[in-house]
């Protein structure tokens, strides 16, 4: 019996990111949620759809706006065993982005695939 089962209930959590970073705080505070969730041994999924795909854009440099650049934190998720990052293909395309533009390795899924993933979750938290 693995460690997760021993600790009790394991639910499928999905954190859905639909907002661009910096214009609002949602992307950053969702990330704080995600990091905390790592301590609970749940089955954690991150979805990036709509403007949420902008959160993962490489090369962010916030020096000029006086805010903290948190984009490197997505790269730290692996160290917390949070490895299920799904990015919607159509959302990337509409924004002229490709997988090569992203700061972390992700699984690019179609909109239909993303819809199916969402449908299988126990808890969905979005912002």
């Amino acid at each position: 019996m693995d460690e997760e089962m021993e600790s009790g209930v394991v639910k499928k959590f999905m954190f859905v990111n639909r907002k661009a970073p910096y214009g609002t705080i949602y992307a950053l505070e969702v990330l704080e949620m995600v990091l905390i969730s790592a301590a609970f041994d749940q089955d954690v999924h991150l979805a990036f759809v709509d403007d949420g795909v902008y959160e993962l854009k490489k090369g962010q440099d916030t020096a000029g706006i006086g805010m903290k650049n948190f984009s490197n934190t997505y790269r730290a998720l692996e160290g917390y065993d949070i490895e299920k990052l799904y990015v919607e293909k159509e959302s990337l395309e509409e924004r002229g982005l490709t997988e090569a533009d992203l700061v972390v390795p992700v699984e690019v899924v179609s909109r239909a695939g993303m819809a199916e993933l969402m449908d299988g979750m126990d808890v969905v938290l979005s912002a």
Partner: protein
Amino acid sequence: MIHTVNKSPYERNAFDSCLKHAVKGSAILLYEDGVYAAVKGCTAAARLADAVADHPVFVLGPDLKARGMDPANVVDGVRVVDYGDFVDLVVEHGTVQAWL
């Protein structure tokens, strides 16, 4: 699964994004400014009418009335509910995805 939309279909992309991601059979509840999409005759209503074929669709009556919208004038097939029904829908349909 039940999807909730609380934003105007004109101001934000939440309504359209919800329609694109809700799998067939999952429920959709419109409340707060999301209720405008359920009113017959507005341009968003056509998109909701298409969704009615694939989803049980609900709209929160108190939010419609607050905005001066007639609960009798909603898109065909859309059911008007109250807060108690909102609770029942969540019980019945399982996981809630809020399109905030």
